[in-house]
């Protein structure tokens, strides 16, 4: 069935006769149909044959592939479908389970990882898009047996109850402190605003981040 939209928009020729292009926009709506409304641009209708021919010449894409994921400095080959998220690839295929999947919609932050140094939600990232990027998870935070100052501070300040949100908070806290070694309380809250803790440990988390920042500034 033809998309309704194709019918809804006049093509160039009919448009010169009948200026309804902007009638349904706010401006056109007020001006009324055809009352000299300026249709800044209405793209021409596509020609089926043209589009069909061109599409046939183009690359068809893939529904699955083997991708190489660089996680915490280690390279892994993994077979994924196009729809496989980075979170699922890490957890289900590579058994890297630090990133948790709670909401699976970009709302809670439990799946937070760094990709090429930028904080992202692995539940809203396709595994195929992570190919060749530098992925860091909470597993890479400690240096061997030495915990990262943030991890120490989280323990010290009692910043977790069930701990399900903690890997996400640690990743966000690290990104925050990497960019800003001396954040104000307001900056800490904003930096961690993409992470939700259902046990309500926020005050302790904020305290832990501030205390870790202090320690790191002193070179500890």
């Amino acid at each position: 069935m033809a998309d309704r939209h194709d019918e809804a928009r006049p093509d160039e020729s009919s448009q010169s006769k009948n200026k309804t292009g902007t009638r349904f926009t706010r401006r056109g709506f007020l001006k009324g149909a055809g009352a000299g409304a300026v249709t800044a641009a209405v793209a021409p209708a596509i020609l089926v044959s043209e589009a069909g021919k061109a599409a046939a010449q183009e690359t068809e894409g893939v529904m699955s592939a083997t991708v190489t994921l660089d996680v915490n400095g280690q390279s892994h080959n993994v077979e994924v479908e196009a729809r496989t998220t980075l979170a699922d690839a890490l957890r289900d295929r590579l058994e890297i389970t630090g990133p948790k999947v709670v909401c699976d919609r970009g709302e809670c932050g439990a799946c937070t990882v760094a990709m090429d140094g930028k904080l992202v939600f692995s539940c809203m990232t396709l595994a195929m898009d992570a190919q060749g990027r530098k992925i860091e998870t909470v597993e890479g935070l400690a240096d061997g047996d030495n915990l990262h100052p943030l991890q120490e501070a989280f323990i010290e300040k009692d910043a977790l109850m069930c701990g399900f949100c903690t890997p996400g908070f640690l990743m966000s806290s690290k990104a925050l402190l990497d960019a800003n070694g001396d954040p104000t309380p307001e900056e800490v809250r904003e930096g961690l605003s993409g992470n939700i803790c259902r046990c309500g440990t926020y005050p302790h988390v904020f305290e832990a981040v501030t205390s870790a920042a202090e320690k790191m500034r002193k070179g500890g």
Partner: protein
Amino acid sequence: MQNFTYVNATSIEQVPSLLGRSWDDAVVMAGGTDLLGEMKDFAAVPRRVVNLKSIEGLDYIRQDDAALSIGALTTLTDVLNHDAVSKDYTVLNQAVSVIASPQIRNMATLAGNILQRPRCWYYRSEDFPCLKKGGARCYAVGGVNTYHAIFGSGPSYIVHPSDAAPALMALGATVKIHGPRGGNEVVLDDFFTLPEMNIRRENILRPNEIVTELTIPKPEANSKGMYLKVRERDSIDFALVSLAAQMTVVNGTCERASLVFGGVAPVPWRAIEAERYLQGRRITESRAESAAEAAVEDAKPMPHNGYKVEIAKNLVRQAVMALAA
């Protein structure tokens, strides 16, 4: 989420041919923060997804004396951190600063933000085959419509969820579109469309067209802007009502006013009556009050969202007084 064929586009010119006649054939993906959510909820079930991130050179912010040009794939974080945006385009800077969370802003693109699909909970639920998804009825009518529209709606009552779009519209931004026959440009006021034109979509874009750039004319040197957003929680949340305002006030008289609401209509909603009312007038408390009344004159609240009218009025009053000060 249903599996699909994934294609990495390599140039803007190539994209229209990778797309199809209908939205079920193929869609483009930028940051994916909206699209993947839609696909997980089966609100979108495309057979093919065309990745735009693989196109080089669509991620830029260029500034000249007349305008700021922002490439479609520029992330919200990059918009937020750009000096020119914080200096001369305050309303945009403030709008982007209150979008979602740092992680989303790192992933989400500016074009993706204005093209994001509705958040209507019936639309996002697999169990409700509503009008917007090609079904027979709107479940917000007679259902729970707390977060739905008070302006410009019917037969669908969605609100446009974007915070960047009202700000861009208040600044008079234009959008560059690329399709099978090349490119064209349209002002945002004419880009977004009401449900009565096409209930399935929120703008004029066709299934085989993409947005390549947003261009924002430089505001007059003596104009000021601000973005006000009211939400339920104070962290990640969409606007209940928001207002993007850009005004030029000289010696207490308003020369130009551009006021665009978010969260109240299926499109970013320009408060034309309020703008007209303010133009050429001295700004006083009572003028601000009258402008606020004018802004909501056409409001048709639904059973559960009458509260939005009061918030909308408050925002107009607040912005007008602040920008005239």
